[in-house]
Every structure is written in C-alpha cells, then in structure tokens.
C-alpha cells in the first residue's frame, strides 16, 4: 500500500505545474479563453514536448504506455490552473483508436502534438445513457458512412479528426471520421464544443463497441475526478487566503467561527474527494473486471459530484460579492467544478449504476 506518486509521476507533475505557473497563469488563461480559437497552440506543443500527449499510448506508437494513475498528477495540475485545451478529448479519441490497425497512422501524430481528437458520443436526449446512439452507420463498399447528429462534443471545434459512435447492424460501434466542423460554442466552463452533424460522411470502423465506450467513459470519469481534486484544491486554498486577509468589523473574517467551520468542511470534502480519485484511477488501471472498475468509478464520481458542488458553492459564498465577479479565478473554478459534477454522469446517474452493480 502506497499513496504516493512514484518519482517519474512526481517529476512530471512538478514540471507541468512549473510550466503552468509560468505560462498559464490566470491572465494568460483569460487571453486564451477570449481568443477566437479558444485554445493555445503553444501550450499544446509544450504539452507534447513534455510527453503529455503520448503518456497513455502504447510504446509502439511513440507513447509511454501509462495509465490513469500516471495521469492523476497532471489532471490535478490542470484542474488547479483550469486548463482549457482539449487534452482529455484527445486522450479519449486516441485510446479509442489505439486498439485498431488505424492506430499506426493516427497515434504517432497525436503523440507528437500534431493531431487533436475528440470523442463524439453524446446525442441530444441521451443524457447519461451510454447506449443511447441514434446516429446510424451503413456499410458502403469497403468503408462506412455515418448519418446523424452528435451533441455537446467538447474539443470538437479544434479536433483534427473525430471518433464517432454509431449504431451499426451488429450494435454500437466506433468510427474515425473527418471533422464536419459544426458551429463552435463556449461551454459554461469556457471550453469549446460543437454539435457535429454527419450526412453520409465517410468513416473508418474501429475495433470495439459499447464495452469500449463504457471503458473509455470510466477512464475519463476517473480523470475528471483527479482534475476536480485540483480545482477544489485551488478553490479551498484561495478561499482560505481570502478568509485570512479580508477584514470586516475590524478583523479578518477568518476569525469568525461560523466561517471557520465551513472552511474546515470544504477542506475535509477536498480530502475525501482526493481519496476517491485515488480509488477510481487505481481501479481503472488495476480492476480485474468491468464491474469492479465501474463500481469504484461510480462511487468516486458520486463523491466528487457532491464535493465539487459543496466546495465550489462555498468558495463563492465565502468570497462574498467578489466570488461572483468575473475578475476572480474562483468564479471560474466554480464553473469548471459545476460542469465536472455532471460530466460523464452526475451523482444521480452514478447512484443508479452503483446500486445496480
């Protein structure tokens, strides 16, 4: 039993944090978010130089063969800095491709930072039901064509290719397709998404069906748990700092017991969330079957959803009016934590799944 990152994991997380502190502070992030593209090409190429874009892919494609635990420290750092680049969508897309022969032509470019992907699975009306896929795939000669509409695909506007789920004659299947470039929009947490529409678009079929969708979604859910821990850490740290410096009635407001106890409860929620993120990421890497993995991920996601809401709401409340202000980073961690609470399944969804397992 050991809860530390190993030396490599720690060194990588430290260098990511150093880079983010230097080149991705709140002001730099504000410019990226305000830009037309909504992401930073220079940040992305640094991620690639640091090996982040190759970390989880097989060595034969230039990657390092890492797992969820290897990504935890990075996701935490991304959560603290509120990184908006489409890192997770690219990992999900890449992992969907990784088991197919197509990996040879796609993954080396992803690893090098020259290709970004997005995972186009969700559709309007599906909510969190992973089996709800109306997009149709039809055989067309040697290849396939896609017909249907995906929705809320984070990272789609900047993706070079999309991994798309569609109903094939033999069940839900995954495909690699050109990006049809739907109209981009901003999400609540200031990322970019689109609703790609496929009208007879050509696509190449990948290996794996609904089980792979579930596996990738659990993987991503475990990673946003780690990201949430980082965002919560930021929210707790900055709120604690505010309690120590903001004065009212002639004293720092942190001297008031009503606020101290709420701060302590935020701190405890963050620690409990960290514990569950460790569990989820470990089980994603080590679980012997899908049920064991799903149970740990759902448990973690419920806890993270609850604590993300608790910590984010309290961080704004304890800042008073300033917490509502666009100027303060805490209002942005609030947005990200709000989205994470529902991303890849909200607490109600995972409660139902947890009970059914």
């Amino acid at each position: 039993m050991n809860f530390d990152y190993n030396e490599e994991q720690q060194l990588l997380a430290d260098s990511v944090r150093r880079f983010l502190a230097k080149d991705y502070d709140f002001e730099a992030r504000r410019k990226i978010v305000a830009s037309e593209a909504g992401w930073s090409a220079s940040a992305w190429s640094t991620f690639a130089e640091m090996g982040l874009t190759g970390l989880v892919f097989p060595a034969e494609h230039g990657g390092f063969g890492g797992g969820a635990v290897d990504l935890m420290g990075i996701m935490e750092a991304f959560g603290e800095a509120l990184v908006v680049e489409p890192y997770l969508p690219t990992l999900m897309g890449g992992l969907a491709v990784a088991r197919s022969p197509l990996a040879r032509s796609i993954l080396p470019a992803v690893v090098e930072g020259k290709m970004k992907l997005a995972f186009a699975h969700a559709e309007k009306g599906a909510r969190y039901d992973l089996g709800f896929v109306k997009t149709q795939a039809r055989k067309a000669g040697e290849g396939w064509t896609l017909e249907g509409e995906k929705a809320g695909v984070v990272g789609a506007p900047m993706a070079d290719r999309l991994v798309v789920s569609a109903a094939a004659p033999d069940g839900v299947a995954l495909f690699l397709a050109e990006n049809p470039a739907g109209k981009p929009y901003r999400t609540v947490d200031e990322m970019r998404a689109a609703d790609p529409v496929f009208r007879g678009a050509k696509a190449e079929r990948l290996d794996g069906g609904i089980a792979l969708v579930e596996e990738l979604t659990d993987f991503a859910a475990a990673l946003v748990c780690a990201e949430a821990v980082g965002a919560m850490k930021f929210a707790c740290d900055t709120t604690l700092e505010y309690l120590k410096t903001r004065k009212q009635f002639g004293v720092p407001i942190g001297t008031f017991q009503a606020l101290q106890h709420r701060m302590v409860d935020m701190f405890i929620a963050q620690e409990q969330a960290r514990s569950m993120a460790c569990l989820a990421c470990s089980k994603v890497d080590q679980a012997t079957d899908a049920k064991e993995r799903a149970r740990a991920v759902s448990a973690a996601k419920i806890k993270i959803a609850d604590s993300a809401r608790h910590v984010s709401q309290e961080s704004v409340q304890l800042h008073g009016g300033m917490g509502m202000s666009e100027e303060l980073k805490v209002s942005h961690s609030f947005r990200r934590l709000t989205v994470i609470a529902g991303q890849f399944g909200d607490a109600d969804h995972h409660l139902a799944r947890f009970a059914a397992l």
Partner: protein
Amino acid sequence: MDLNYSPEEAAFREEVRAWLSANLPPDLKEKVASYAHLSKDDLLRWHRILARQGWVAPAWPKEWGGTGWNVVQRYIFEEELGYAGAPPLIPFGLTMCAAVLLRFGTEAQKKRFLPRIYDGDDFWCQGYSEPGSGSDLASLKTRAVLKGNEYIVNGQKIWTTLAHYADWIFCLVRTDPGAERRQEGISFVLIDMKTPGITVRPLMLMDGAHEVNEVFFDDVRVAAENLVHEEGKGWTVAKYLLGYERMNTGRIGESRRQLAALKEFASSRIQDSRFRDRLSRLEIELMALEITNLRFLDRMRRTGQPPGADVSMLKIKGTEIQQGITELMLQAADPAASDAFTEAVRRKYLSMRKTTIYAGSNEIQRNIIAKMTLGL
C-alpha cells in the same frame, strides 16, 4: 500509488481473522450483533482472551507486552476486531492511561500500573469533564491541594464513562488556581476509586442505559507519588492524549459490519430508490473514510511522525457515518414492530447521538483543524 495491501499484510489479516473466528466467544459476538448490554464481566472476559494471546495492547513497546506491529498492521487488527463483532476494548486503561504512563510516567508508575492494565486487573476510567467544563476543559475546578505527601482532592467530574466499573480514575485537577495561564495550574493524577470520599452516581441516558456517571470527590486523599509528569503540566499530558483519542475514532471495521447488517435488515426497503440512494451515499462515505484513513497511516509509516491535527477529520467523518448507519437502521425498521431487535435498533439510534459529542465534540474537532491545520 498502490491501494492494495502487500501479500504480507494480506496474510496478517488472514491470520487475525482465523484467530478471531476460533477465539471470539459466540455469545459475546451475538451480544454485540444484537446491540445487547455488555457487562463488566463480558468486557473483561474478552480483554483477557486477547491478553493471553498477547494481542491486547499492540501499540505498547514490546518490553511492556506490545506486539511490535507497524501502524498498518495495528489498523488491520482493529479493523478485523470491529468487522468480526468483538466487544470493544475499553480505551481508558489500554490506550489512554498507558500512553500517558509510557510517555510521562516514572519507572515505578509504569511497573505498578502497566502490567495490571495489560492483564485486566485494573479497570480504568477518565476524569476530565466537569459540570462547568465541557468543551472548555481548561476551566476545570476540581481542586487538589498538596498537604505533606498527599493531595487532598475536592470537586466533581461528570460524564465519566464506566466509572461504576472502575478501579482507578485518571483525573485532571487544579493544583494552582493562581497560575497566570489557567492551563498551567492543571495536573494529571491517578486516583484509586476505593479511596474514602469518592461517590459515583449514575447518569441515565436517553436510551435507558447506565454508561456514564457523576463522580464526586470529598476530601479524597491521594498519594503525591500518583502525580504523573510534573505538577502544573497536566495540560501537556492531556494534549498529548488528544491525538491518540482521535486516531481511534474512525471505527471502520465496525461500520463495515454494521453496514452489512443494515443491508440485510433493510433488504425489503432496498427497492425504494430514495432509501437505496441514501444507503449508497453512506457506503461511499465509508469507502472515502477508509482510504483517507489509510492515507494517514501511509504518511505516518513513511515519516515516522505522529498524526497531525488533520486526523480530527477521521473523528468527524467516522462518527457521522456511525450515526448515519443507525439512523438508516431506525428508518428501515417496521414502525409497527416491537420485537427485541427492533427495540434495540431504536435504542442504538438514541445512544449513537453521543458519538459526535464525546472525545471532543465535532465542533471542537473543527476548531482544531481550523487553528492547527488551516492556520485560522
């Protein structure tokens, strides 16, 4: 990062589990499972079974009977005791008084008291709270005046758990009412409960159980050699003990057993998604607490440092979970049932409200984290 126990740790758990299944008397296990009253004889019988095995005081130094287990093994042992449904080991002698004597006691005090604690010859209780001094413990008034080689003790303690079983009480008393800092006027003394002038009066709690007492001291003569550490240093001793108390309040093994019992008891209600979701949330709270507890142990094992103030969160979350389980038990019970077990479930709910109050209320624990960990 590896959340799995090592093969050695897993083997250790198996060893403890096998021993427990062979040596935990079925009648005691049944009493615990049915929330029945445990008599002094019940408690001591189990204590002595463990003492004979050499396992009653794992944390003590080996020379005094400790097992030499590391913190993780000790945690596994406690978890297995709780999960098996063993009667509780009363902490006042084994955990608290012993920890104080081992850290602050003279050789003579250690030789006199530790073997008797180990063998279950002396039953101890804790004399801390007073009618006017609960959370504000340092305001305590019980007075001890040194006359010759004796202290004369006058005053009153309250909420004294199992004082009616106890042979000895360790007490915080005021030896110097004029001390500049009131904490500096407090001393830690050991008092024989058979000394003339001590009166124990039961305090019945809302579940109808006699567990706590008032203890009155009326010109009680205590040999000066029963002072622990120096006069006026009792607060230092008390603070040292606090960390010990908090590290042991998670009760994860016991909660796991209770949760399993709850699932069985509530099987007819599990289809109700409102009930089921509350049960799941509680189960997940317990998972999170277990891992958080292991993170603390891992840190202690690596750094060799005693736990920081942030272990207070284990007390807060552990007791909330214990209460949550009994609350769901209560709600799962058929409202029209009056069988013995259902009645015991209702009493247990009443009784468990104490957990967020005792051993430093959860509000005091939050004060501790706010001050010591967060610097507020």
